[in-house]
Each structure stands twice: as structure tokens, then as C-alpha cells.
């Protein structure tokens, strides 16, 4: 290896380097390529043009280029020249770091480095060039599919440092190849494999970490930090470089863009190929994208049992993803392509052709591989097109580069030739009559010029044959008959450049040699431009969201008059029989009898019950992640960052009459994360589901989970309930001091975690605290008293009944499970009478779920308070509507049927507390998000579309497309303890 490196001479003269190996030997000749169709760039084509190069650069291009005398001229009649491709999301030549070996019985909470940022996964100081090592084997695999330059980077960690722009030039050395040693910074949401530091354990943690990193970098830049932080120094130093963010998913693209917006950075975003599903939001990022071409294989659905496991969404992605580049282009969203994500690089052309067959223009495809990536890096003056003065990085092909029949001959990098297929290959395709030992055979040669295929017949009988074609030598073996009748011929022929008859010699079964001539009877008929590409393929329509039970149009607010219902107002008016409710413009406008519809759709609700939508104070559905367990306080993370609007549990909960949910952080740590409070607007974006002007909440937790009692972890404070108190005191004390400093007018380091705690102390943010046993419930109220605030809610509180008097005095609400207990030691004294006792002590009591299944029948859970403790039916009903709305500070908007409130309503076929009741319609702000009749249609539609797509996949399999075995990406159903 060393010898190899030593020997490889720099392509360019490094004229101040001494030379002891011979005489001065530099080549300043020109090379001219004439009569070619030259794609100078995606926008400029020169027919019958000349490309002139010298010293690795383009010296001239056009129709009339003067060819100097010291030029070697190659006639490329009929052939094409393209700028070679550029991949700016590459890890070429850079080894992925080794995975840190696990040791010890506990997670590692502290950083393992000194002099760097406090989190190991933030490594902006890394430079790919320092771990770069050129391997021509890998370079060759890239050149083979048309790439000439890559921007490589360390594919590891959240902040990954800078990349390096490398020319894939076999003939030079790194002095030639390294075009730029610090080009672009790279970021992602994934932790480094090289460090075991626990934080961040979650998606929202990664996002919070990036936010804090930028804040800290600014603080550092202002000179407030006495020590050296090489990470932040590098981040500040690299500020001028473009930042590439590996989002790899439409939702993560939006998340990354928000961080960019907050810090004045426009990321270039590595997409996931599913951008088309949320194309308008993607467009709104105004980002340039880097798109993978890793379209999924069809699922092998030939076995119906197995086909069950493939969701409609996954089937659709197979059908729709190839259209992603086209849809991006139609929306004028700029993008480059990358090889990243492709399992086999050799699939590149095939998948690109697929994208084109779905309507992507060849021009955009070429742009995405040449000038666009160059522009992203600000390197358009050097690479990406074939204008004079730029690097002579180009491809020579037999024809249009994206046609399936086209042969890529040569990939020139920095003016150096890399042969892929012999350029002067003679096209021997055609039909011949072959005469051997007096026998006549019909030889038909097809395939590509470089890789021809042979079929041999004698009259109508097929003859076994094998054709090998290399360096214009044809080697053809024939075999026919058996036993005495057996004939064998081994044939050699050098193709003549005129492409006419084939002359050569052969050896028969007896070893006798003779010469032969194969007369060309018919020229090979080249098909026109790819027939397949001509018919643009269409995709199955998208729905909102683009999964099973998604709506073809987003539900819109309608005006309704519910006639003659039993109305559960949840207000002083109580339950009103035979009452009408008028809904207009998303609001409840009138409650009364004999109301006029005034154009509203009349719903006959005779014999039915109309209630406010159910409010669940404690849920973890519709989330991509639930716990940031990497630190004992994670007040900096927000569940609003990780709302998943495509979760089918949203729809299932609508079917249970739920309209509002608080999506809480888990209970892995005493101070958890900030909540997302959403309306279940199935089909809307995450941001549109989150309440406008949402009340601010945060999850706190107590007991076994925060002590890490039920799993092997012994190194994080606190490990006892005694410690839990001090953990709170510690953080609130810090927050108090933080606020004092902030108020003093002196400079202070902005700390998102501290800002959040200050909000709590100022009564601007409310705590919903996971709680079981009385001692710690009492404790948290005392801590709150000490720091001058009020705990808002104890959530799924189970021993609230033991301290209900103290809770009432403190003014905290209690949200509880109806009847859960016995699943862990600390719920041993949980009783189903908890709600009733708390309620009688004057506490605002809610029944919550903390469970994706239970939340969709919270009406039944509320009814249990009638059984356990004798609540009145009206009080029971309030526990899942107006009471949780009060706890969430949303009772002015939802939770009861009152004029002026949001029309979040449920029409039940029976008494809403009855075990036999079923939600028939669920409305949010006057729009119907669930309807039993519509649901029946949806079921039929899902069934039909599944069947259609299954047929398409069966066809694809029959047509020889690769397949994958059916599988199901099962979503976890989160609880508090889910890590």
C-alpha cells in the first residue's frame, strides 16, 4: 500500500518538489474529442461539437473549437459527452468509526472527551479529510456509474464536522484529488456510534441538543467562556460553509428546517424519498434537497397470509416513491441526487430510469447530478459543467446517458481517462449465416455493443451457444446433438471495424481447425429512444394522511343542526332532553329547542346523545418518541417536535369520541419534556394539530421510574425518593439563580432548560406530574411552595386519595386511571375509588388513559367512577371532558357544549357512559373527522386499494422485478415507561 502511494506520481506538476527518479516528464498536450453531442450542462447541448482539454481542465468546447497541433484527436461520431456526476452526500474513503463497546451495567451519562463540547455526539471539529484514504476499488465502483467527484464526510454523529471534495482520479494522488479539504458541514439526528454517552436518547433530544449547540456557539463567540471548547470553535470557524442536514424523512426535514430558521441557517437537506407526501410543507422550507434513489422493491405478496403484514402505506410507498423526484421538480424544489441509501450502486441507472419513467425530465435528472450539487457547495466554477476552465470531468457514452440501451464508455476525471467499456468496440449486433463444416447456422446477436448476446439456430432448432466478446474478439462456442451425433465448435473471430461479415477460424469436435465467414444478413435494429420511458407511469392518489383510512380531502368545517338530541352540556344546564345544537363556522352557536337550520345540514339526533369531545389529559399516541432518558432533567425537549400526524391511533381514537389529547413526555426522569396538546385533526400536519396559543405544559415524574428501579441502571441521580426531592430543589434553585442573572442585565448564557424551569416558577408553564404514592405527591407540592408556584396536575395519580385534603389546599388537579393497579410495587395501594375521594375533597378530577387502546373508550372508564365510589353520571362524564379541559387550561374552548365554544362534538348511539355506546360522528371545530358511515366506505376503499396494489406487485414480480419479503414496521405503543 505504501509502495503504491509512493509510486503514484502526481498528475499535475508539483514543480517545487525535487525529483530523483528520472528526467522531467510533464504532459501539456491537448486532447480533442470531436463530432460528439456535448452536454456542456443540463441547459446547453452542442451537437457535433468538440471538447478540448489540457492539463486536466476544459480548454474549449463548442461547434468550432480550434484544435492545436499538439492535440490527440478522438472522433466521437454518434457518441455523447456529459459532465460527470457529483455526489455530495458520500462517505467515500472515510471509515465509519467503530462502535463503542458496551461496558458496565449502567448507561454512561457524562461525556468522554476533554476540551470539547459537553456532548460526545457534537463533533463539528471533525474534518473528513483527516481520516480520508483513497481506495481506487471504491472509486472505480463510483466511476462505473458516472461519478467523477464526491463530497465525502464522516457519516457519524449529530454534528459531524466538515466534508472534503474529492476527484475520483486514479492516475493522480491526493494532491490532485483533494479539490477542497473543508467543504460543507454535516449534521444529522443520529448519535455517534463511537460514544456511549446516553444523551440524547430521543428524537426530541437530538433536536434540543442542536438548538442548544447553536446558542452555546454564539455565547462562546462572544468570548464569555474562559476555557477552550474546540467543538464550538470549529463550529464558529465553519460558519461560512454550507450545512448539509441528513434528515432522511419528510418530517425530519421540517424539523431540521425549523432549527435552521431559528439560527439563520438554511440547511441543504438530505431527503428520505417521501417528501412528496407533504410536498407543500417541503416546498415551504425553501431548502435545496439531496434525494436518494432507493426506491423500495415490491413486496412478494404471492402468499396472502404474508401479504397481510404489509400495510397499505408501505404498498403505496412502493407505488409512489419513484415519482418523488418528478413531484419535487414540478414544485420547483431544487434538488441533487445521491447514491447514499442505494444498497447496490449498480442500481443507480436503473432507479434513475425509473424516476424518469415517472415523469422526471432528463434535463432535471442531469442537473441534479451535475450543476446542482456543484452549486450547493459553491464549487460551480470548478465542477458540474464543461465550460472552459473547469475540471475536465466528463463521460463518454454511446447515446443518451439515461437510456437503458446506452453504454458508458469512459469516465474522464481531471483530464485522465478511466475506461468503463472499450470505446472503440465494434458493434457486431445483427443476423448472420454461419457455415461450419458444411452446416449452416443462423446466428442472431443482440444485447448491447459491449455485452452482446447470441442466439443460434439451425432452421427452427435452437443450438446451445455461449458468446464471449472482449477487445473486439468474438469467442463463440456451439454444442449440438448427443452421442455420435454430437457436434462442437469453438469459434474465434476479430470483428472488423466496418461492422460487416465476421471472418475467423474454428475448431470442431475432432480438433480440426478451419476458417469461416459469417455473412451478415440483417443489420441490428436499434430501438428508438427507450420505449418504456415514453409512457409516463402514474401513481395511486395520495390521501390525508397518506395511510390507510386517510381522507381524499381534508375534512372541512360544515354547518350542522343536531336535532332532538339528548345533550350532555357539561355545564350547569346539565343533560338536556330533546334539544337542538347549532354548529356554524366551527363553533357551537346555539343550544335550544326548535332551532332553525339556516342552511346548516340537519342531523336527526332523535334517541341519540350529543356530548363534547373527550379530552385525554395523558396520552402518548401520535408520537415518534416518548422519553428523553439521557439526563435527569430534560426540560429542554418538546413533544411538539415529535408529533406524528400519520399514526393510525389518531383515527382509532376519533372512533372512540376523543378530540383533544395532551401528548406527554414519558417518566424516565424527574423533569421530563414539554407537552404537545393536540386536536385529533386526522389528515392535518403536526403543526396544524397542535393548539394555537397552546397552554404550556411539562411532564414531571416521581417514583420507581425516575429512580430507575425496575431496570439495570445504578449510576444516575436520583436512585431514591429522597434524592428525587433534591433533584427538583437543585434544578429550581439553579433556575432561580439563572433568572436573577438574566434580570440583572448582565450577559448570561441562554439555557433552554433553565428558561423552561423559569416559566414554571413564573406560572407560565404548568406541571403535569406522573405520580403514584402519597409521600412524593406531598413532597412535590412542598417543593412548589418553596419556589413559589403551584403544581397544576398530578397525572395518573393513584394515591391522591390519601392526600386529597392537602391537594385541595394546594389547588392541584388530579388526573387518574380509573382502575389500574398491581403492575408495580408503588401501585399496590392504588384503588379505583381514588377519583371519587379526590372529587369529594373539591379537587378537579379527570380520568386519563396513558394507553393507546384505553383512550378510545374513555367514556367507559369514566363510567367506572359510578361503580367505584358512586359518582353521579354527570360528574362521571365531566371527568373525561370539562375536567381535563380545565386541567389543561382549555375549558374556555373545549370540554363542554356551550355557545361560543369550539364545535368539538360526539354523537353517540346510546348513553355515552353505557358499555354499549358507540360514537357515530366525531367533529372537531365543525369538521367531521369520524363518521360511522364514512368509516364503512373507508374500509371498502382500503380493501380495494390493497387488492389493486397487490395485483400490481404480482405483475411486477412476474415481470422479473426484484421483491422483498412482506414485513410490518410495527409502531410501538408508548406508555410512560417506554424508553
Amino acid at each position, binding site marked *: 500500500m505504501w509502495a503504491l502511494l509512493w509510486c503514484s506520481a502526481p498528475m499535475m506538476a508539483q514543480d517545487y518538489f525535487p525529483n530523483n527518479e528520472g528526467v522531467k516528464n510533464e504532459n501539456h498536450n491537448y486532447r480533442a474529442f470531436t463530432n460528439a453531442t456535448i452536454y456542456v450542462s443540463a441547459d446547453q447541448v452542442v451537437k457535433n461539437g468538440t471538447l478540448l482539454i489540457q492539463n486536466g481542465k476544459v480548454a474549449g468546447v463548442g461547434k468550432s473549437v480550434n484544435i492545436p497541433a499538439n492535440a490527440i484527436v478522438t472522433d466521437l461520431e454518434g457518441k455523447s459527452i456529459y459532465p460527470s456526476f457529483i455526489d455530495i452526500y458520500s462517505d467515500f474513503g472515510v471509515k465509519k468509526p467503530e462502535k463503542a463497546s458496551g461496558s458496565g451495567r449502567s448507561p454512561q451519562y457524562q461525556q468522554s472527551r476533554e476540551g470539547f463540547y459537553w456532548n460526545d455526539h457534537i463533533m463539528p471539529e471533525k474534518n473528513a479529510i483527516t481520516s480520508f484514504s483513497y481506495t481506487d476499488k471504491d472509486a472505480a465502483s463510483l466511476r462505473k456509474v458516472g461519478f467523477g467527484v464526491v463530497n465525502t464526510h464522516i457519516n457519524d454523529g449529530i454534528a459531524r464536522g466538515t466534508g472534503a471534495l474529492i476527484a475520483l482520479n486514479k492516475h493522480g494522488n491526493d494532491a490532485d484529488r483533494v479539490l477542497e479539504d473543508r467543504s460543507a458541514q454535516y449534521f444529522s439526528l443520529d448519535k455517534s456510534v463511537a460514544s456511549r454517552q446516553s444523551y440524547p436518547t430521543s428524537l426530541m433530544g437530538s433536536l434540543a441538543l442542536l438548538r442548544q449547540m447553536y446558542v452555546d456557539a454564539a455565547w462562546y463567540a462572544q468570548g464569555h467562556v474562559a476555557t477552550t471548547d474546540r467543538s464550538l470553535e470549529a463550529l464558529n470557524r465553519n460558519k461560512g460553509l454550507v450545512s448539509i442536514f441528513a434528515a432522511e424523512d419528510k418530517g425530519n426535514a421540517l424539523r431540521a428546517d425549523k432549527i435552521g430558521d431559528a439560527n439563520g441557517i438554511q440547511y441543504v437537506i438530505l431527503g428520505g424519498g417521501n417528501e412528496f407526501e407533504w410536498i407543500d410543507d417541503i416546498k415551504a422550507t425553501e431548502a435545496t434537497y439531496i434525494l436518494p434513489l432507493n426506491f423500495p422493491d415490491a413486496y412478494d405478496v404471492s402468499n396472502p397470509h*404474508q401479504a397481510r403484514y404489509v400495510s397499505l402505506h408501505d404498498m403505496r410507498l412502493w407505488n409512489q416513491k419513484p415519482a418523488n423526484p418528478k413531484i419535487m421538480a414540478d414544485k420547483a424544489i431544487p434538488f441533487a441526487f445521491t447514491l447514499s441509501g442505494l444498497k447496490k450502486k449498480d442500481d443507480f441507472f436503473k432507479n434513475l430510469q425509473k424516476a424518469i419513467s415517472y415523469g422526471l425530465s432528463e434535463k432535471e435528472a442531469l442537473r441534479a447530478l451535475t450543476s446542482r450539487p456543484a452549486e450547493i457547495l459553491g464549487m460551480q466554477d470548478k465542477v458540474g459543467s464543461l465550460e472552459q476552465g473547469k475540471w475536465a470531468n466528463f463521460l463518454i457514452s454511446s447515446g443518451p446517458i439515461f437510456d437503458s440501451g446506452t453504454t458508458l464508455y469512459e469516465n474522464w476525471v481531471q483530464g485522465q481517462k478511466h475506461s468503463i467499456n472499450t470505446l472503440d468496440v465494434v458493434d457486431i449486433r445483427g443476423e448472420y449465416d454461419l457455415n461450419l463444416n458444411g452446416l449452416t447456422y443462423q446466428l442472431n446477436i443482440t444485447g448491447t455493443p459491449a455485452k452482446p448476446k447470441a442466439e443460434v439456430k439451425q432452421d427452427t432448432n435452437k443450438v446451445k451457444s455461449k458468446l464471449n466478446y472482449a477487445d473486439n474478439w468474438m469467442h463463440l462456442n456451439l454444442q449440438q446433438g448427443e452421442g455420435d451425433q454430437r457436434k462442437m465448435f469453438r469459434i474465434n473471430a476479430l470483428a472488423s471495424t466496418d461492422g460487416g461479415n465476421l471472418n475467423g477460424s474454428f475448431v470442431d469436435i475432432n480438433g480440426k481447425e478451419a476458417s469461416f465467414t459469417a455473412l451478415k444478413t440483417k443489420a441490428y435494429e436499434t430501438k428508438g429512444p427507450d420505449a418504456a420511458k415514453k409512457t409516463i407511469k402514474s401513481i395511486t392518489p395520495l390521501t390525508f394522511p397518506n395511510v390507510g383510512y386517510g381522507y381524499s380531502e381534508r375534512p372541512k368545517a360544515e354547518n350542522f343542526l343536531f336535532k332532538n338530541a339528548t345533550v350532555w352540556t357539561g355545564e350547569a344546564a346539565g343533560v338536556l332532553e330533546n334539544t337542538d345544537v347549532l354548529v356554524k363556522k366551527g363553533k357551537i352557536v346555539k343550544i335550544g329547542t326548535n332551532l332553525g337550520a339556516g342552511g346548516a345540514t340537519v342531523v336527526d339526533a332523535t334517541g341519540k346523545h350529543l356530548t363534547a369531545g373527550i379530552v385525554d389529559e395523558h396520552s402518548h399516541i401520535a408520537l415518534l418518541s416518548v422519553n428523553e432518558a439521557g439526563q435527569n432533567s430534560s426540560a429542554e425537549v418538546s413533544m411538539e417536535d415529535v408529533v406524528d400526524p400519520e399514526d393510525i391511533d389518531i383515527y382509532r381514537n376519533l372512533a372512540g369520541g376523543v378530540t383533544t389529547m395532551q401528548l406527554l413526555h414519558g417518566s424516565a426522569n424527574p423533569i421530563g419534556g414539554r407537552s404537545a396538546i393536540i386536536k385529533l385533526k386526522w389528515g392535518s400536519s403536526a403543526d396544524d394539530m397542535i393548539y394555537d396559543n397552546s397552554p404550556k405544559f411539562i411532564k414531571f415524574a416521581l417514583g420507581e421510574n425516575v429512580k430507575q428501579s425496575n431496570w439495570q441502571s445504578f449510576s444516575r441521580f436520583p436512585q431514591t425518593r429522597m434524592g428525587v426531592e433534591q433533584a427538583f430543589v437543585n434544578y429550581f434553585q439553579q433556575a432561580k439563580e439563572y433568572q436573577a442573572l438574566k434580570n440583572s442585565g448582565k450577559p448570561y448564557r441562554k439555557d433552554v432548560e433553565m428558561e423552561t424551569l423559569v416559566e414554571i416558577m413564573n406560572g407560565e408553564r404548568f406541571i403535569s406530574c406522573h405520580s403514584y404514592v402519597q409521600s412524593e405527591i406531598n413532597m412535590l407540592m412542598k417543593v412548589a411552595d418553596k419556589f413559589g408556584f403551584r403544581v397544576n396536575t398530578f397525572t395518573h395519580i393513584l394515591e391522591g*386519595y390519601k392526600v386529597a385534603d392537602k391537594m385541595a389546599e394546594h389547588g392541584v388537579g388530579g388526573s387518574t386511571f380509573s382502575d389500574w393497579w*398491581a403492575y*408495580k410495587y408503588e401501585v399496590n395501594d392504588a384503588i379505583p*375509588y381514588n377519583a371519587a375521594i379526590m372529587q369529594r375533597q373539591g379537587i378537579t378530577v379527570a380520568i386519563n388513559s396513558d394507553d393507546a387502546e384505553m383512550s378510545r373508550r374513555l367514556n367507559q372508564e369514566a363510567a367506572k367512577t359510578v361503580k367505584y365510589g358512586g359518582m353521579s353520571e354527570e360528574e362521571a362524564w365531566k371527568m373525561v371532558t370539562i375536567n381535563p379541559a380545565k386541567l389543561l387550561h382549555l375549558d374556555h374552548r373545549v370540554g363542554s357544549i356551550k355557545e361560543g365554544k369550539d364545535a368539538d362534538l360526539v354523537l353517540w348511539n346510546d348513553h355515552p357512559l*353505557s358499555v354499549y355506546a358507540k360514537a357515530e360522528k366525531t367533529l372537531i371545530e365543525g369538521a367531521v373527522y369520524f363518521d360511522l358511515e364514512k368509516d364503512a366506505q373507508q374500509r371498502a376503499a382500503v380493501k380495494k386499494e390493497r387488492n389493486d396494489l397487490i395485483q400490481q406487485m404480482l405483475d411486477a414480480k412476474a415481470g422479473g422485478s426484484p421483491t422483498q419479503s412482506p414485513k410490518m414496521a410495527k409502531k410501538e405503543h408508548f406508555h410512560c415507561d417506554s424508553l
Partner: protein
Amino acid sequence: MKTFKIFTLIALSGFGLIRAQQTPADPQSEAISIVGATAHIGDGTVVENATLVFENGKITALAAGAATQGKVINAQGKHVYPGFIAGSTSLGLVEIDAVRPTRDMDELGDMIPHIRSMIAYNAESKVVESMRPNGVLLAQVSPKGGRISGTSSVMQLDAWNWEDAVVKADDGIHLNWPASYRRGRWWMGEEPGFHPNKKYGEQIDETLQFLANAKAYNQKPATEANIAFAGAKGLFDGTQKLYVYANGEKEIIDAISRLHAAGVGKMVLVGGYEAHKTADLLKQHQVPVMVNATHNLPFYNDDDYDHAYKLPALLVKAGLLVGIQNMDAANFQVRNLPFYAGHAAGYGLDKETALQLISSNTAKILGIDAQYGSLKVGKSATLFISEGDALDMRGNQLTHAFIDGREISLETHQTKLYKRYSNKYKTK
């Protein structure tokens, strides 16, 4: 006085941890007549304004206007039900799920029919006693885990000890049929979703090999005993049922047909997420289904939201014998058995048929229907009186409950705490 109070509290709480169980009731000493109730027989019928008489633990009369005898309980406007029966639970084998010392339901080993649940049954479990105020008076207690988890027994839920509790000892053997798909083990670098289980065939083969060996062994036991093989004897002489846990259509078909071919006489399907697709096969082999409880999310993303709600009705309408169990849930949830049935009634069953799913049907499946599961003259007086509809949360309010005629306590650890703390606030 103050010291004394503290002393009693400590004594009570210390005591409470060890013995929460209410004192088991004495045998029935006098005839009891329940008068004026709506009697839900458990076989699909109702007797309005019924008089129900029982003596020495047996029902002696049940009719509107039957002559009363002994102690009379006025149940005007109230409802009488047969005690509900929970199948495939680990009641009494696990006290607190997260505390390992209290978990006794999963023994080491893959094919362990000789492992018997009965002897680990904790008759003094606080969880067990909490079943009774909801009407759940009998339960099949079964081991969990592994391939063949062990042998279950049917217990009544008011007893001094396990021998006292047994209604039917060693009633069945529990087999977790292999799954053709399995979850990726993410900690081993696999994708986390469901993938084809490449060892499905191998696992079936292992299971069938074990059963074939057990069958052969029990024809002529070797001189050196094999207690695992011996433990499966009942499957081949008709004395024990095989409870087969399977959910997918493929697994159900494989299980029933292969096990039938292997000579297993009586089978019960437990789970049955796709049993509606295999109804004909199940009928053909007379295999009843203890279907998953209604409080379950759909397994596949594209399934109907109410799949679990309506599945019992689908199976009943297909002509199968159906019971409801909730083996997937924590033990404490078993007390919600009546509400699972109620929920099923909201999705296509009439209420009395829904009641059968947790009474007479389950009794038939468990083989205890001669005594339990319905209110019939001559059967055990295992029944309760409820203020209202016992399948509805609001109506399920028990005033009396009897097991074999013994009037059992409806107090629990939880009702005690309720009273204690209600009093605390009252005295303030």
C-alpha cells in the same frame, strides 16, 4: 391512646402485606332465597321476577313465584347472574408484575407440561380478591411462556389454600403455537418490525416431535420415567384439553390440523384474532375459541378499528362455541371481564348471548358446566346479585355473591382503603 393507634396501624399495614385476603366464607348453613330479581340464566334466557333458592351449595329452585326457603334476600329490581368465569389467566401466580419475587407464572424450559399452576396459586392474593366485587368468581389459572407452558387448573376465588380453591385440577395443557412472523430483535441489530420467522417449520416440528414422543411414552412408559412426557398423558386419553394459543389464520390452520393429526383429542383455541376466517375448520374439529378480550387494538394497521370489539360476535354467528379471555392484559384487568362482554354486546351480540361468553360458554370450554356457568336447578349456587346490568360499568354493583352457596366477602384491600380514607376526611 395515640401510641396505641400507631401500634395498630403498623400492625395492620404489616399484616396487610402478608394477608390481605378476606376470611373465606363458611359452607352454606341454611337455605337462601333470592326473591324478585331478574335472573340472567347464562344460557341466553332470562327469568323475570325470579325466586332462586339454594341449599347446601346447590340451586334447588328457580322460577318466577317459586316457594322461598330459609333466609330471604329481597332483590326487587336487582339482577342475578351466574358467577363469571375467566379463562387463561395467571391469577394467583403473579401479585405485582414488576416485582420478580411475586412472579410465578413462567418456569424455565420450553416443553414443560408437567409444570402445574395449581400448587403456586396464591389463595391470599390481593388481586384475586379484587375480582369478586365485579362478579368474577371462577378462573382458569394457567402457566405462561415457553412453547408448552404447563398445566392449568380451574379455581374458585374464595379459599384458604390451593387445595381448597381447586374446582377442576389439571384441566388442561397450554401450548403457544409458533408464529410464522416474529418481531425483529433490535438489540441484535435486526429491524424492529415483524418479519417472517424462518424457524416456524422447525418450531412446529419440535412441538409435534415432543407430542409424538409423549404419546408413545404414555402407551408404554419406559422404566426410567420421563415426567415431561408423562405430564402430557391427558391429551391422549381424553382427560385433558390442549389450549392452543394462536392468532393468525395460517397459525390456526396449521395448529388445528397438525395437532389433530398428532392425535390430540380435545383442543381449545385461545386468541383467535383471525379465527373468523377459519370458522369451518374449527367447527369441523369442534374446537371452541377463547377469544381475545375486546379491549385490544387492531394488530394490523389497516384493520377495522373495531376488530376486537366485533370479533366475538363474528365467531358466535359463525356457529362456534366462544368464551372471552384477556391473557394479554395484566392480572388486575381480569375483573373487567364483564365489561369485555358488554362491549361485545355493543358490537353485534344481544346482551344475554354476550353474557354466555363469560359464563356458560366458558364453563363448557373448561369442562365445568355440569356445576358452573349457568343458573340451573341442581347446579352449584355460584352466583351474585347486582344492582343493575352487570355487563355495564354503572350497573355492576354487587350486593351479594355466593360460591357453592357460601356467601363470600365483597370486601377487598381496595374497599378497606376506600373506607379508611373516606373516614379520614369525614372526621376532619
